[in-house]
C-alpha cells in the first residue's frame, strides 16, 4: 500500500448558522441557544419565563382572554410586519373586549431554512410593539417544521387583559338607535399587503394602518361613554364586522357610504383590482357602537388619539330585519352590504 500522508487537521466546515434548521426545534442544545440568543432577548420579562413552562401573572379582576395566529405574506410590508401585527392584533382584540391589555404569549412556528435575521427582525418588532402597546410578552414557544411545511414564519399570540368596561361590551349589548362610529379610513392594511405580495407593480407605497387601538378605547371607557360594542375591522373588513354584529345582535345596521373615509390611493388600488374597500382588511381600525347620546363626545375623544384621529359617525343601528346591513350610496339608494363571499381575488371583469 502507498504510504498515507497524515495531515494534523480535518476540514473546517463553515456550517450554515444563519438559517433555521430542524435542530432549532429539537428540544436540545441548538434550540436552547436559539431561544437564549434570538428569542428571549425580545421578552421584557425574561425572568418570568426563563426556561420554565409558563409565566405567573396577576390580573386582579375579571380577565379578557383572546388569541390569533398570524400568517401574513410577505412577512414585512409597508407600515408593519408579522411581529407588529401579532402584538397589535391581539392587543386590539383585548381592547375590543373592553379590557386593558396586560400580558401576551407568543407561539412561533418556523420553517426550516428561514433566515435567522428575518426571525431576529420579527422578534425585535414584537418587542417594540409590545412596548408601544404597554403589554408584556411573558411566555412563549418555538417550533420548527420541515422546509415546505410552513411559510417562513407563523406567529400566534394569546393575550390577557383586565376588563375595565363597567358593563359587558359586545353584540348582545347593542340596541336599536345606537350610533355607529368608525375610527378612521379603511382598506389600508389589506391593500398594503396585497400590493406587496402580488407583485402588482405599484410604484406608490400604501402603508398598513397596523396600530394598537387600546388607548383610545380605554379613554372612551374611562370617560364614561356608554360603549355597547367594539369590533376591529380585520379580515373581511368593515362589511364583515358590521354584518357579524348585526346578525349576532339580531338588529339591522345602516350607514352612509360617503361618510366612510377611504384614502385616494387605497380607493384607486381597489378600483384597479376590482375590490370593494368595505371588504378589505384593516389592522388599526374599529367600529364603536355607542349610545346615541354619547356619539359626539365619543367621536371627539377618539379624534384626540392619533390612531383614531379620523373617527367619524357613519350610521346607526335599527330594528330588523335581523342581520341586514345597508349602505346608502351616492344616488341616495340603499344597497345591502354582505360579508365577503369566498376569498378576495383581484378581478379583471
Amino acid at each position, binding site marked *: 500500500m502507498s504510504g498515507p500522508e497524515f495531515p494534523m487537521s480535518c476540514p473546517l466546515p463553515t456550517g450554515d448558522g444563519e438559517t433555521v434548521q430542524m435542530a432549532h426545534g429539537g428540544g436540545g442544545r441548538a434550540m436552547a441557544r436559539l431561544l437564549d440568543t434570538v428569542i428571549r432577548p425580545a421578552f421584557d420579562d425574561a425572568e418570568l419565563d426563563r426556561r420554565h413552562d409558563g409565566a405567573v401573572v396577576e390580573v386582579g379582576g375579571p380577565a379578557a382572554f383572546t388569541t390569533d395566529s398570524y400568517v401574513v405574506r410577505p412577512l414585512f410590508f409597508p407600515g408593519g410586519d408579522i411581529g407588529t401585527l401579532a402584538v397589535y392584533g391581539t392587543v386590539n382584540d383585548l381592547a375590543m373586549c373592553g379590557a386593558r391589555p396586560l400580558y401576551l404569549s407568543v407561539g412561533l412556528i418556523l420553517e426550516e431554512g428561514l433566515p435567522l435575521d428575518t426571525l431576529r427582525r420579527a422578534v425585535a418588532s414584537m418587542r417594540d410593539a409590545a412596548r408601544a402597546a404597554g403589554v408584556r410578552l411573558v411566555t412563549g414557544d418555538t417550533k420548527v417544521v420541515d422546509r415546505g411545511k410552513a411559510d417562513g414564519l407563523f406567529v400566534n399570540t394569546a393575550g390577557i387583559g383586565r376588563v375595565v368596561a363597567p358593563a359587558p361590551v359586545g353584540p348582545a349589548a347593542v340596541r336599536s338607535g345606537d350610533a355607529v362610529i368608525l375610527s378612521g379610513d379603511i382598506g389600508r392594511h389589506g391593500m398594503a399587503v396585497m400590493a406587496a405580495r402580488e407583485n*402588482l*407593480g*405599484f*410604484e*406608490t407605497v*400604501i402603508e398598513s394602518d397596523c396600530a394598537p387601538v387600546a388607548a383610545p378605547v380605554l379613554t372612551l371607557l374611562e370617560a364614561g361613554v356608554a360603549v355597547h360594542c367594539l369590533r376591529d375591522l380585520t379580515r373581511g373588513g368593515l362589511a364583515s364586522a358590521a354584518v357579524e354584529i348585526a346578525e349576532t345582535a339580531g338588529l339591522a345596521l345602516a350607514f352612509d357610504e*360617503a361618510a366612510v373615509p377611504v*384614502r*385616494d*390611493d387605497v*380607493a*384607486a*388600488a381597489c*378600483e*384597479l383590482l*376590482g375590490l370593494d374597500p368595505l371588504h378589505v382588511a384593516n389592522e388599526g381600525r374599529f367600529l364603536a357602537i355607542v349610545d346615541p347620546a354619547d356619539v359626539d363626545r365619543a367621536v371627539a375623544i377618539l379624534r384626540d388619539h392619533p390612531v383614531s384621529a379620523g373617527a367619524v359617525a357613519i350610521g346607526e343601528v335599527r330594528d330588523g330585519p335581523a342581520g341586514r346591513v345597508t349602505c346608502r350610496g*351616492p*344616488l341616495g339608494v340603499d344597497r345591502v352590504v354582505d360579508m365577503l363571499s369566498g376569498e378576495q381575488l383581484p*378581478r*379583471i*371583469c
Partner: protein
Amino acid sequence: MCLAVPGRVLDVAGDEPILRVGRVDFGGIVKQINLAFVPEAQVGDYVLVHVGFAITVIDEAEAERVFRHLEEIGELVVEEDGAA
C-alpha cells in the same frame, strides 16, 4: 365585465411600438402600463387601462361634458375622478 380604469400618463418609454410602456397614475397609485395600443398617447393624457394595457386615450372635452352632468345631479364621482 371588462373592468377598465382611467389614469394619467406620467412618462413614456420603450423603443419599439409593441414594447411601448409608460408610468400611469391612477389617482395616487402609479403603475407601469403597456401603451402599445395607444401610440398616440402623450405624457399628460388620460388613458383607459384594462388588464395592464391602455385601450384608449380619453377625450377630455367629452369627459368634461359628463362631468358637468355629474355636477348637475350632485353625484359623487366614484370611478373616474382622475379622468373627469
